[in-house]
């Protein structure tokens, strides 16, 4: 039993790394189990996982400027481009 626990044990540092890894690629079978076991036992990492996903959602929307992003006017840029097109 102790052997099995050691096999499944992760540090919080490693667990948070796996949470980020999981958001961009697949985890191995072992990593998946390790992460599940760890977040069941560790409140801090459980919160981290939830909040990391929340931040992903926010940043996805931000980068794709969804929601009410105001149009940024840039007159100087417009003039500069028009000028560079003249040349």
């Amino acid at each position, binding site marked *: 039993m102790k052997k099995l626990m050691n096999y499944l044990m992760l540090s919080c540092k490693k667990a948070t790394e796996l949470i980020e890894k999981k958001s961009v690629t697949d985890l191995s079978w072992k990593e998946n189990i390790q992460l599940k076991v760890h977040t069941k036992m560790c409140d801090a990492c459980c919160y981290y996982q939830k909040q990391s996903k929340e931040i992903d959602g926010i940043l996805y929307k931000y980068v794709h400027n969804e929601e*009410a992003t105001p149009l940024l006017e840039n007159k100087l840029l417009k003039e500069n481009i028009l000028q*560079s097109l003249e040349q």
Partner: protein
Amino acid sequence: MGTIVDLSNPAKTLKCWVELYSDKLYTWAYYKTSNRETAEDLVQDTFLAAVTSFSKFEGKSNPQTWLTAILNNKIIDYHRKRIKDPTINEASQNLPEGAAFFDNWFDKNGSWLKDQQPGSWPNTAEHLLDDNNFSNILQLCMRKLPGNWLSALQLKYLEGKKAELICQELGIATTNYWQILHRAKLQLRKCLEMNWFKK
């Protein structure tokens, strides 16, 4: 639409497009780079590229769509270059480099330091980004990240591809990529917590 796309007169058409679309393209680029000067350069480059490849625009697609496609390629190229730029790493933001970075977060066994442990956040509003105060704080926290971390983060949401594919194109190891994302996320989460969620 006839006045917008006069294929026989590229110069006139492009000037018209600058008037119509430069602000939209600039806004688009700004939210994908978090940097005003970069966004300006990329939009300028987009129009210059549009001049040289004008013959490829056949009037079939919407001009804004066509210009946005050129701009998107330039944005992704920009991030790819920055990820590998050694001059904009941790040191540029006074963060400890390498393994020492984690000493701010975890003890030698890899457990959270007591004052760094994530706790619960109040329920988040559904449209947080509609709140200007939140948007400002998010931008502030993003600007505090080293440039190559921010680029890694932005590429993640822009590309929407598996890490293996992004890394293949970038010529970096996948391990390296998610380790950058790990550091960036720890830092960004903390900044948002301190300045917004637990203020």
